């Protein structure tokens, strides 16, 4: 239950991080909050010769609002984002997802960027990023680039980040007035990974849904965008119908926590609840 030996690096700049990654390649791993990585190291499910700590890197810790987006730096703690007035007013879906993550002691250390880069398909923040069409900012040896969330999540724990690249920030679009958001999930105990979860956003104009976002988690190898269910929502379907449409396209696998058939059935209920709550908040 102890991690294997590694060399610890605490670089001060993103350039130093990418230089270290270029030097050590596969033998190096970046460490942000460590709430997923350190257990994997301790259980010897993973081992690296070099750990590169991002916590002292300049420029990765801020939350800034500009031009219709909220930029959350890679090492912003989940607890900081959870209690941020900027997050609550600008990206309510993110604010509502955060309390579902682990426990307050975990969120005191865990980071928003780390959760998204870790890309666990049962975790909340990747689904939020996907539902909201967030943009992931990545830095590598060649500079920075923007990756659409739709292109970012490749498979379980796998992202579009190249070897040698790190996530430096996530930019969430800010929705306008008349919007409502909800995050619903089923867990055996509070703080567990979700068996099934949904993040919903709607914007209403004249009583009609003019914008819809629906991200699902715990239901496939990546977070999923429920595009057909979003279309149904835009076409005026009620929440129960949206739930049925969302579930109909799913083929979740069995695991020790729940069967795929059970997950699929529960998905319709969770989506219905999330859509109902989002609609209510939007003023429907």
């Amino acid at each position, binding site marked *: 239950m102890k991690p*294997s030996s590694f060399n610890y690096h605490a670089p001060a700049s993103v350039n130093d991080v990418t230089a270290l990654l270029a030097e050590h390649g596969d033998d190096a791993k970046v460490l942000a909050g460590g709430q997923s990585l350190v257990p994997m190291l301790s259980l010897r499910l993973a081992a690296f010769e070099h750990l590169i700590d991002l916590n002292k890197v300049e420029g990765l810790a801020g939350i800034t609002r500009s031009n219709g987006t909220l930029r959350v730096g890679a090492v912003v703690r989940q607890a900081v984002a959870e209690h941020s007035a900027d997050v609550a007013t600008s990206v309510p879906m993110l604010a509502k997802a955060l309390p579902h993550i682990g426990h307050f002691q975990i969120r005191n250390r865990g980071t928003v960027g780390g959760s998204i880069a870790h890309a666990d398909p049962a975790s909340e923040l990747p689904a939020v990023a996907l539902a909201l069409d967030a943009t992931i900012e990545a830095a590598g040896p060649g500079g920075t680039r923007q990756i659409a969330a739709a292109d970012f999540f490749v498979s379980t724990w796998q992202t579009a980040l190249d070897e040698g690249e790190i996530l430096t920030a996530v930019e969430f679009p800010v929705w306008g007035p008349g919007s409502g958001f909800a995050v619903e999930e089923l867990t055996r105990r509070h703080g567990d990974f979700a068996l099934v979860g949904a993040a919903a956003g709607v914007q209403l104009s004249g009583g009609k849904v003019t914008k819809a976002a629906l991200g699902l988690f715990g239901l496939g190898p990546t977070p999923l965008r429920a595009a057909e269910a979003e279309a149904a929502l835009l076409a005026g379907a009620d929440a129960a119908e949206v739930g049925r449409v969302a579930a109909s396209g799913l083929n979740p696998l069995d695991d020790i926590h729940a069967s795929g058939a059970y997950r699929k059935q529960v998905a319709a209920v969770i989506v219905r609840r999330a859509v109902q709550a989002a609609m209510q908040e939007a003023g429907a």
Partner: protein
Amino acid sequence: MSDEVIVKLNVNGRDHKVMVEARKLLSDVLRDDLHLTGTHVGCEHGACGACTVIVDGAAVRACLLFAVQLEGSQIVTVEGVTPGDGTLNPFQQAMQDCHGLQCGFCTPGFVVSMTNYLDNNPNPTDDDLKIALSGNLCRCTGYRGIINAARTVAGLPVPANAADGSDH
């Protein structure tokens, strides 16, 4: 493979200098190097909360941090949450009064977590308390006494008849 590194830590208001491998967990440094054995190690992968300590004002799992990361941080362990005059802090006293412990293994984690939580959230609801307590596991008490201890400190009603089922 990796050399030992010198790390300066401030624990419970005292400066310490330790020479440790980079892979050494904060929980092990506290126990083995600083002999602060009040921090208990249960699951050692972040699930049980027995090793909870306060780092720069925030309760965290000591088993999910490397001591080498914490140069310059202020760390408070269970040994440091008491007033220092031989009395107990309000949550510790309430744990005793409400019979919130049996074997005591998990108790330091609960004490550190809830001392930190109640400092930052002096007016929680009953549901807030249950959620706040969910990050620590206890295998003896069934949690009733622990929840009642938290209720006592928060000024919330404590059910008179613990067996009436109203508490679930």
